[in-house]
């Protein structure tokens, strides 16, 4: 039995959870931005539709009707120089044994120990339907992936794509009250609602660079980035939206709906009350 620890430290609200990349707070060195490498020989000019989404939306595209084929990877990497790495090593040697005290919880430091010289984020580029529709699924996780990675990916995608390309953003946010549709000329968010994470960064890039043909569909979710839970209503709204968007592909709506629900449950994205009688 694990007792709830009594001395839980309440983090100030202006501190956001994110991986610690430079443990030395006194450093005056500028850190380089991660670099994004795209697959060689890939013709981005031919892309008509692009769907950069969060990984939790994969069930919507991971079905037989999409005929998905992997076309390569967007590789985002950050090389930390030796002085940063050695500081990291010093810091880690003094690290309090998190696992000993909280064996059932995830230790955010454990990942940085494995590779302190290079941090890499790989995003598969999937082609759907053989129709020049690309799906770029971003595996975000507030404990493992620094927002700087998703920021540079959003910026790179913006430079690769034409401002006239049809871009569909499907995602979720725990900072909104209801389902939102956004585009260049329409913002249905009401203060204090907002969108963060890769989705927020991508919308920001597209808006600032006047991408006239993008559409965002964002449903309400619960939980931090990488651990979102969707309600049945949100799932159904997403499914209806995709069926509508892909109406020309004659999707079997019932089978598609059932398949999506099943995949979301397998992904652990369904709220606990919807995951069945047994745990």
């Amino acid at each position, binding site marked *: 039995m694990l007792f709830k620890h009594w001395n839980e430290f309440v983090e*100030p*609200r*202006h*501190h*956001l959870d*994110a*991986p*610690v*990349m*430079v443990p030395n*707070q*006194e*450093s*005056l*060195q*500028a*850190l380089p*931005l991660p670099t994004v490498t795209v697959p060689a020989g890939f013709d981005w000019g031919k892309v008509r539709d692009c769907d950069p989404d969060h990984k939790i939306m994969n069930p919507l595209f991971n079905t037989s009707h999409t005929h998905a084929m992997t076309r390569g990877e967007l590789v985002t990497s950050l090389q930390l120089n030796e002085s940063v790495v050695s500081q990291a090593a010093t810091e880690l040697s003094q690290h309090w044994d998190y696992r000993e005290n909280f064996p059932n919880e995830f230790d955010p430091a454990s990942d940085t120990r494995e590779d302190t010289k290079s941090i890499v984020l790989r995003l598969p580029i999937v082609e759907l339907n053989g129709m020049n529709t690309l799906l770029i699924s971003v595996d975000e996780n507030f404990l493992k992936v*620094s*927002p*700087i990675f*998703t*920021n*540079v990916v*959003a*910026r790179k995608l913006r430079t690769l794509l034409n401002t006239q390309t049809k871009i569909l953003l499907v995602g979720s946010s725990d*900072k909104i*009250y209801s389902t939102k549709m*956004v585009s*260049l*000329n*329409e*913002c249905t*968010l*009401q*203060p*204090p*609602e*907002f*969108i*963060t*994470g*890769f989705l*927020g*960064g991508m*919308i*920001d890039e597209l*808006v*600032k660079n*006047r991408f006239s043909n993008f559409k965002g569909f964002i449903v309400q979710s619960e939980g931090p980035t990488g651990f979102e839970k969707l309600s049945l209503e949100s799932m159904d709204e997403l499914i209806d939206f995709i069926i509508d968007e892909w109406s020309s592909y004659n999707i079997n709506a019932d089978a598609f709906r059932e398949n999506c629900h099943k995949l979301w449950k397998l992904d652990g994205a369904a709220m606990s009350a919807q995951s069945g009688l047994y745990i």
Partner: protein
Amino acid sequence: MSSSITLVLPLISTGNVPQLATDLILHSLSADFSFVQDLDSTYLHPFVGPLDYTIDDLQGNGSLGPDTPQLYRDHLATKKFSSALELFANKDKTVYIVQQRTPIVQGYINSFTMEVIIPLIQELQATNVTVLDSYGTLDDIAAPRGAVAELGAATGGNFSNLSIGVCQVKSIADMIENFQTVLNLQLDPDSAVHYTNSLFTFSSNSPLQEISTSQQVFKMAYHILNCPSMTTLKEIKYASLFVHEGDNSVDAMLLCEHLPQLIDAPVLKIEKFKTPVSWKGVYGLNSVPSTMDEGIYI
């Protein structure tokens, strides 16, 4: 036209007091201030939100008036979203205010200062930079060596919650030459953090008399002073308010009342505070919403 141009920079700090104070300045003085441009937010946590407005911007029927939200009145045709980092200015372009809605990504404070803030100071040809900050009892890097405990003793009882320090940039060349020696760094054995009391000259009734090298304001000052092409800047003013985290809207009002001390511009006297609608249910005396317990800042 006045020869002084002031740039106000709110840091992300305890209770988000500088952001709230910036909201109050901009919305209370929205007749004079307006949006200028979005700034590069690559180094910040991503953010996109709606345009914020005050209740006063609404018409009687609850819809927004024809020229609202007031702050964005000149850009409403093209601007539908607010971003993580925005620049506002008053009508005669003597005071520029940055609103920063999300923290800097861990490890990128130096890059942010060198690639976003310094080019902005140069572009605006700012003569004064005012940095707004706040700190609390648990803030060991910003409240060095028992400064909070000795709040009264340090100032002989005549203390203010607000610490104001000034860095005179009279001769950049001299400063650069002497920078390493004049810093006079001291190590606090309890926190292993270095402090300096020679970069900013604090007023006698300030509880803070020194800053640490871990603080964002130190890094900002360091990079600004080490930038050889910084020709117009004369002064960096630093103001840090002692707060307890909670509903910090009143702290923000308190900080705004000190604006005449911090910014040499008569326009910054706020007669009536106006709060943005994004505060509703989050700060102040309104009811707390059932599903969202945070404001527009993450």
